[in-house]
């Protein structure tokens, strides 16, 4: 719909090989955020990461974004080791972090300007404004937008470079339930439209089931993958499907188990 590019088969396979991440806190103590993560994400797959806070979900995402480097192991995107940020791996935070000094249009264009794209490509910006449903708000400043609209703009800014991988770090966490469900559908629509590989961090199990092909349940301290759960429900999904409920109780069970594990870790 947006460009001819997305008709092409796009790769976007991500492989984690024995990934370990250790942070050193200000007092010099080592904290293991991730321990030996092995995971393969297929091109165009929609994967959710769920788990209690402190389980390393965001760290995993930041490693793929290139904002952090793994202490051990490697992460590959289409067989190339990730080293540093790249515009083909887009990131959306929980906070929209739009540049407050730019209008919505210029914020989205910043995605192109940052990597030094040719000015001719800037015509695309208006298409992206429409894609995320912000037509008519191109000249608004971020502080004039609602939370949902700001997050739409942030999504457009990440998408404008047509990334292979879209990383979403609790992007809907700060929104009200109604806006949230609306944006879930938008995210799905854009994903189906463009075949981007998406990794979605969330606290909301229903959200994970509604959106993902696979759900990765993680446990904290040290963060590791507890279980990978396929979502065998056809799309478009109904939130009232019996399988939906079955899956939810299954994940809750796993998470509960995860909790006990972390408890025993403390004891």
């Amino acid at each position, binding site marked *: 719909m947006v460009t001819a590019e997305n008709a092409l088969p796009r790769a976007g396979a991500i492989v984690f090989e024995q990934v370990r991440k250790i942070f050193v806190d200000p007092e010099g103590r080592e904290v293991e955020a991730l321990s030996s993560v092995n995971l393969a994400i297929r091109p165009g797959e929609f994967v959710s990461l769920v788990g209690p806070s402190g389980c390393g979900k965001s760290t995993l995402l930041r490693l793929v974004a290139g904002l952090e480097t793994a202490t051990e192991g490697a992460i590959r995107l289409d067989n190339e080791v990730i080293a540093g940020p790249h515009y083909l791996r887009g990131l959306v935070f929980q*906070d929209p972090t739009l*540049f407050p*000094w730019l209008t919505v249009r210029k914020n989205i264009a910043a995605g192109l300007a940052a990597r030094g794209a040719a000015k001719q490509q800037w015509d695309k910006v208006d298409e992206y404004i429409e894609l995320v449903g912000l037509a008519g708000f191109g000249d608004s400043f971020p502080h004039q937008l609602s939370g949902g609209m700001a997050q739409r703009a942030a999504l457009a800014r990440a998408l404008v470079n047509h990334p292979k991988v879209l990383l979403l770090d609790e992007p809907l966490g700060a929104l009200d339930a109604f806006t949230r469900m609306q944006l879930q559908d938008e995210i799905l629509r854009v994903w189906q439209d463009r075949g981007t590989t998406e990794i979605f961090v969330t606290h909301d199990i229903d959200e994970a089931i509604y959106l993902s092909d696979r759900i990765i349940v993680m446990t904290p301290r040290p963060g590791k993958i507890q279980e990978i759960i396929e979502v065998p429900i056809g799309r478009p999904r109904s939130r009232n499907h019996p399988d939906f409920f079955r899956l939810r109780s299954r994940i809750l069970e796993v998470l509960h188990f995860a909790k006990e594990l972390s408890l025993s870790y403390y004891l």
Partner: protein
Amino acid sequence: MSASELTSRKKAELQIELGELKSEEHGVKKDFTLMLIFKLLLPVLLWGLFGAVHLFIADRQILTGGKYFNWLLITLLGLYLIFLVISYFISNIRSGLVHKVPLISAGLIILLIWELSTLKSNLLPLPYFPPPAKVFAALATDWQTLWISVLYSLRLLGIGYLIGLLVGLPCGTLMGWYAGFNYWLNPVLRFIGPIPATAWIPVAMAVFPTSFAASIFLIALASWFPITVMTWSGIANVNKAFYEVARTLGGGEYYLITRVAVPAALPSIFVGLFMGMGTAFVTLVVGELLGVKAGLGWYIQWAQGWAEYAKVYAALFVMAVIFSGLITLLFSIRDKVLVWQRGLIKW
């Protein structure tokens, strides 16, 4: 309750509300017109009072060149009356005028007190406290010298401030961005910055060939310090998430500095620009009072030497106009550049 019932009830309620609103509006308007006439005529009354005092109470001081002030009073009154007539037809101008009436009245009352305590009673003695008519006469007769002084002052201020800005902005930016620059520049800034630039006058006079060059150096130094500090703190306090977003969008270091750090720091940078302008004014005037042979500061010094205090006040008045004009200019630049902050800032 059916839908039609509901709507008819709502309509009735609305009509009652509307009626109340209308009667209120009517009442307000009635009071408003009486108040309005009084308000708008108050300055005219004060003008008349001042004129009566000026003409009919005997002078206790000798006044020369009083005609200039008479003309000023008549011109200002005429202007006010013209606005009054226009405001009868245009409501925008009327509300603007009503808003300004207290200020205009207060100004006239202060003028009246000034007139009474000097010219009409000699409570405040000459030569230190000349009457308003004398100050205006100085302004009217010596305007050419004053104008040249203004140009000299503006040249000195402009060059000095510009140098302070051109050095301060990169200094602050580099300090905020590179830890290495901060390591070396921070002690310099902390040690040298707090010294008032005017304290360097003896050194500057010795080092620089002319008092003009020395003053430029001092003004640049005076504005450099606050501009550097506020730029540095602005850049150092930018939300780190902005950099992460820019990096994931493919932005390099140059993009991060020029398109993220500096724009994000601009509100703070503008605080530095205002502070720098303030210190530049101080340094300019002190420099002109002490060494430079031109400019408003020099004019004040010179007029004081001849005990012509009317000229001192005239120069102070011109200085107030120029400096507040420059601050206003900076404000309007700020409002243009920081248009994205509209509704967020309150100063």
